[in-house]
Structures are given as C-alpha cells and as structure tokens.
C-alpha cells in the first residue's frame, strides 16, 4: 500500500520504510530499530531527535548500507537501495579522522573517494577550512587539533562529498555556542544554495528548530517514530528566531513529549 502511494507521488530524496533491526551478539538480542519510517523530500532538511542510545546512529548505518536491516527498505529517488553504499555524504558522530593524513588531506578524503580531489577541490577545501576556523592547520595532523576542531574537519569532509543526500550525526556537539551557530548559519547558506537534502541527528531542540523543515522524535530503544513535527517558520530563518514565542512554544512542546516518553521508559 505504502509502496503504491509513493510511486504515485514524486519520489523522495530518501525514504525509510519500516526498518527494524536487532543486534545479535552470541545469545543476546538487542532490538534497536522498531519499524521506523520517515521520508526526506528532495531539497528538504529534516532532523532526528531521540534519547542517547536509542538507535539514531544505527539508523544512519542502515541508510549508509553499513548494516542490513532485519526488515524494511531504504529508497532513494524511488529506487530500493537497501544495503547500497556510497550514496550519501556522511558526517559520523566520532570524527574518525585518519591520523596519518594532515587535516587538509582528511578534509579532502571523501572527495578523493569519488575521484574529484583536483586543484579546485583543494582550493575549496582551503577556503572552507578558513571559514571554519581551521586556517593555518592545513598541515597539522589530527592529534594536534582540539576536539571541536576535529569535529569541524570531519564536518567539512562530509560537506565536500558530492552526494545529494547529506547525513549529519551530531556534527556540532563539541562546539561552543557561537562557533556552533556560525556553522549552522553556514550550513543553511550552503544548503539553500545547492538544495541538497539533509538529514541531521541532534540533541539540541534549538538546532533542530532553526535548521529543519521537519523533526522526527524517536522513542527510547528500540527506537520508533514517536512524533513528526513540521516546523512552520519561513525561510530564510531570522537570527532572532530563538526568541520568537512560536519557537519557544514548539520547543516546549517537543521537550514535553520527550519527557513524557522518557518517563515511560527511563533511559
């Protein structure tokens, strides 16, 4: 039925259909994803919020083809791509920079993988590193960067990858609020320019509300979609949006829903 519907509608950039997954290690079973469905229309920005350990990163691993779900499918542009890799730009939760590459080469890695690490890419990477406060650290190895600097390098690496769909797993968690909002604004600018489709995991309701068109609230483990929140604010979003009463109201509502859920299943 669902399949029928989506074939009629214009294809989504990314559609996640009834994904379930259980980790099996020896005799232990840990159900992590429970019938998750969500969709990312082309050119849109969605966010995922859920308690720590509920299965968000695991969901990304399924989208990226790293893990095979027990049930359900991943569709991109209407095509079943479950288990296929290389279709998304990915910013992992841990920076995972390669210690033997300097920061510039790390930033260029994803571009290299798709064969586009030419002179122009180098220039672009340099410019972006400057923008992200990493100017002068092009030749520094990852162990010489601070935690937040590593995270920014990883973020740039993901942005420089050419794929349509971008999956960001808590990309700004180690940044101070100013650097963070600077990065957010920049991400929005880039996104508005290129109209790529973004899916973001975040623990910050503010961040989700500022950036996204839709927010999916996940339950505790095994993660299921608890709520889908459409963010009504017009774009481009105002700098002072966070003080808008509507914003605060929505924030409070999301907070309440999460709290309610967590009360049912304490973390």
């Amino acid at each position, binding site marked *: 039925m669902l399949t029928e519907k989506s074939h009629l509608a214009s294809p989504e950039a990314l559609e996640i259909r009834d994904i379930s997954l259980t980790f099996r290690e020896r005799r232990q079973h840990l159900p992590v994803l429970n019938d998750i469905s969500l969709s990312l229309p082309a050119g849109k920005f969605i966010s995922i919020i859920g308690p720590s350990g509920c299965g968000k990163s695991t969901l990304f*691993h399924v989208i990226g*083809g790293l893990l095979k779900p027990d049930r359900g499918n991943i569709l991109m542009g209407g095509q079943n791509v479950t288990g296929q890799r*290389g279709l*998304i730009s*990915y910013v992992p939760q841990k920076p995972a920079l*390669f210690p*033997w590459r300097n920061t510039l080469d790390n930033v260029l890695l994803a571009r290299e*993988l*798709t064969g586009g690490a030419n002179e122009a890419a180098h220039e672009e990477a340099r410019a972006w590193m400057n923008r992200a406060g990493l100017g002068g650290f092009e030749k520094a190895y990852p162990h010489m960067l601070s935690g937040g600097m590593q995270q920014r390098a990883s973020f740039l690496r993901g942005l420089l990858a050419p794929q349509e769909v971008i999956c960001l797993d808590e990309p700004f968690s180690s940044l101070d609020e100013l650097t963070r909002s600077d990065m957010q604004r920049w991400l929005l600018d880039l996104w508005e320019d290129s109209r790529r489709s973004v899916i973001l995991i975040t623990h910050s309701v503010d961040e989700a509300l500022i950036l996204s068109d839709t927010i999916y609230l996940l339950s505790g483990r095994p993660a299921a979609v608890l709520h889908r929140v459409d963010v009504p604010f017009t774009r481009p979003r105002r700098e002072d949006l966070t003080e808008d009463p509507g914003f605060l109201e929505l924030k409070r509502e999301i907070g309440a829903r999460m709290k309610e859920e967590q009360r049912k299943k304490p973390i």
Partner: protein
Amino acid sequence: MKLRQLWNSIWPPLVAVILFLILWQAATSLFHIEKWILPSPADIAKEASTGAAGLWRHTLATLRLLLLGFAIGTAVGLLMAFALHVVPFLKSSLYPLIILSQNVPTIALAPLLMIWFGFGILPKIIVITLVCFFPVAVAAMDGLSRADRVMLDYMRMAGASKGQIFTKLEIPHALPSILSGIKIAATYSVMGAVIAEWIGADKGIGYYMMLQKSSFRTDKIFLAIAIIVAISLAMFGLIALLEKWLIRYKPAKDDK
C-alpha cells in the same frame, strides 16, 4: 639541534658495542681461549687489517645477492599478504602451505633447487626469498586485518570501494606492522644469503666462511661474521630511517 639528536641516538648503541667488545677481549685473554676456538676482537681486527682485501670481492657478491633476494622476498611477502588479505578464502586455504614453506630444511631443498634451477643465482635467490617473505607476509596480514573499526565504518559509509579501503585505510594503518616485518626480514636476509651460498657458490661471504672453516681459520670466520653483522645493522638502520620518514604523523612519545 639536529646534530645533537643524531648524536643522542648514536652513542648508546656505540657504547654498548664497545663494551661488548671489551668484555669479549677481556674474556678471551682471561680464560686463555685459543684463537682457533674464539678469536679475540684484536685478532679479528688484525686479520681485517691484513687480509681484508680479498674479502671485498666476497662481500660485494653477497651484498648483491642479499639485496636482490631481500627485495624480491619482501615484494613476494607483501604481494602475498595483499592477495590473501583481499581474498579471505585464499588466506584460510593457503596459510598451511605458507607455513610448510618455512619447514623444508636446506638439506632437502638444496638438491631439489639445484636440479631444477642449476647453479646460477636463481636457486640462491629462491632460498633468500623463502627466508624473507614469511615475516613480512605474517606481519602485513596481521596489520591489514587490524584496521581501526571506526575508520573502516566511515570508509564504508562514504562508499569507498574495496580498493580504496585497502589503499587509503588498511595499508597506511598496517604500515608500522609491515615495517616491523621488513625489519625482521632484513636481518634474516643476510643469514639467508650466507646459507644460500653454502648450498653452492664460488664467491661470497658464505663460501668464504666455509673455506676458512675447513682450514681452521676461525679468525677469518669471525671477520666474515663481523662483515655480516655490519651489513645487517646497516640494513636494519636503513629500514628504521625509512620508518621514521614514512610514519611522521605520530606524536613524539614525550612531546612537551
């Protein structure tokens, strides 16, 4: 500053070697160990100063043999490790045969090599290769299979092909292991060459030693050993330098 660093890395081994030589010299004269059992460093030095000219030819021959054999052995070891790593089925099936290759002693192997390959350089290269490839292959396979999980996951998620994972993640990650294997192989390659020369040669340090053995010239044997050791140390040192140059990214052990 740089000079001082160099000096700091040179003097401890130098002191150790000199101490060792002094002890040796003292022991030989203290216990009246006869020259044909164990010559003293002084005896060896004397021999070196008078009889070294003829040894140069042998040294060159061995050097040529061992460098070629070492290069081929290392290449074979690496290629084998790469192939076996990329095709896990190959790995599990061929491992016993690789171990087998280390268990055919020269006295059984030498006649076979001679019959199949004659008396040229080929059978000798095969012997050195057999000696060298094994530590390289084992160390490389171990290093390759231990690539960091988080980085590996990233590479897969980013759509890296098997080849890209191999060249951009697994090889750089395995490099320290590989170099450790190559260091072992470099040390063995020298003895490998000597043994290869025992199974039939008309020049080289191994051949020279054999002759000196039959005429009780223990001092000359030890002179030959000194040359072997020098070559070995040089090889090891070169690999260690290469390692320093290749693996620059590491934080100095006690930086700041």
